[in-house]
């Protein structure tokens, strides 16, 4: 009887298989912020991202990796600006600038390897346009200059200048991709 019950249980799986459903998004979507700078566990996220970077070989692979990293940094910067964390936001935006500048040369190298880069080019343009939309909104919301006061130290910040710098950088990338 026990064996029969076990058999019926297993056969049930064959007759009533479990299903999963996949959702597909096709517009350029920025990633979810996740762990943010300032969080004690952020170092784990950074270390993991650096570790994953060791396994990135090839121009297309590095393009995807750097774009994911650039998007991550951009979303961090955006969220931090929105929450008024101007110093951390500035650092994140500076990181973003380093990452986004790596992308066009990777596509040039891929093209030299006779790979067709049109889809990657389109993705880069979509990403940069998305970033520009956000940056143009943020430029109107942040102060020109501010003194950032923390325990035992004060820092002069120019958030609007940094954002405008990033807008120019992104615009140059967009122009070079047309």
């Amino acid at each position, binding site marked *: 009887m026990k064996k029969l019950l076990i058999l019926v249980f*297993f056969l049930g799986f064959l007759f009533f298989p479990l299903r999963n459903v996949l959702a597909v998004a096709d517009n350029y979507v920025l990633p979810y912020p996740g762990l943010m700078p300032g969080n004690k566990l952020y170092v784990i996220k950074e270390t993991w991202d650096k570790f994953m970077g060791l396994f990135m070989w090839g121009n297309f692979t590095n393009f995807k990796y750097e774009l994911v990293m650039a998007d991550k940094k951009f979303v961090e910067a955006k969220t931090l600006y929105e929450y008024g964390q101007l110093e951390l936001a500035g650092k994140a935006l500076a990181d973003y600038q380093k990452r986004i500048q790596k992308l066009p040369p990777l596509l040039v190298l891929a093209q030299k390897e006779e790979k067709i880069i049109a889809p990657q080019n389109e993705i880069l343009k979509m990403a940069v346009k998305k970033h520009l939309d956000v940056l143009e909104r943020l430029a109107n919301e942040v102060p020109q200059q501010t003194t950032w006061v923390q325990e035992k130290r004060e820092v002069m910040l120019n958030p609007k200048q940094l954002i405008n710098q990033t807008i120019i950088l992104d615009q140059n990338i967009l122009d070079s991709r047309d």
Partner: protein
Amino acid sequence: MLIFTFIYSLVLLFFSAWSYLYVDWHLELLQYSWYKNLQTILWNFSLNQRVLSASFYVLIIFVLYALYFLFLFLAKQKKVTSKNIIILGAISSVILFFSHPALSHDIFNYIMSAKIVTFYHENPWMVMPIEFIKEPMLNFLHAGNKIVLYGPVWVLITLIPSSLGQNNFLLTFGLFKILVLAFYAGSAWLIYRINKEQKNAEAIQNLIFFAFNPLVLIETLSSSHNDIVMMFFVLLSFYLLMKKNFLSSIVYFLFSVAIKYASIILLPLYLFLVYKINKKETIDWEKIFSWAAILMFIVFLLSPLREELYPWYLIWTLGLVAVTKNHQFFKVFLTALSFGLLMRYVPFMLTYDWFGYTPLVKKIVTLAPCFLVTAGFWGIKYLRQKNRTVT
């Protein structure tokens, strides 16, 4: 045995010829005009004579199973030797090497993933085949929009045939088939050795149970699925544990997980086994392999969560059940299930449609043999018990 071997060879030859009915319409295996003309005739046949081509398949499977049961019976009568097994294995390997993977296109995905590394110098876990727009394999690749689904050890292994193939599709295709064939032979040898280690008098029978099961033959030697590679390393790791070679065993177990992640389910059992051997306790290997087989069967049943119940996933359970002495019913049940799983292809062959009635018919043809066998088994058991009570 000679006459049966001859019939077996003929059936396999017929299967190999039949397999060319289902070459992908965008795949040109050879550039010669005579081949193109022949392939066009075969395509027209498979498209316009669907009932006939499906019937040929069903007939081949029926005959293969009949011969399979015959070989098992002869082995039980001690009329099959190791030499016979080697000859049958060699015949199966050579004939099915020349068959086309009609039932699955996974081998092309394996070739493409390796090509992404060896030819395009990119990371296949990050870049999909469709991102290489000029790639000719995209014409017949069925999973071009996916990154590689397997672990790093599998990709590393496939770099060997991919590098040796020098971007020549036919040569690379042949080398991949040889690679899988080698692991099939290795798995068969391990099953035999593990049975011998357990002093199992039915070692030859168990070897035939696995190595000549038509599902194993077709999905391994014809379709070249990498499940046999994962099972080779699982069996090797257990075999090395039997020999108390811990370090190598752990390495090969990790290899199996790094090929196809399914074997991770064996980790708790494996760790328990290492602990027991370390404590110098007696191991009931029959129980261990039984539990391993059940665990892999659970993963097989849960596979629809990810995508679908694929027939070749049964190789995981068959490989482990083949190293057990008992479980007569489970072995018979799995044999019936393997038959049902091979029948799953028939609805598509008849309709060329994965939707409509096909999913329901697939379920019915898979389960019907299982129900029949279970009913038969319990019926015979009931009658025997009744006879004993009467006497």
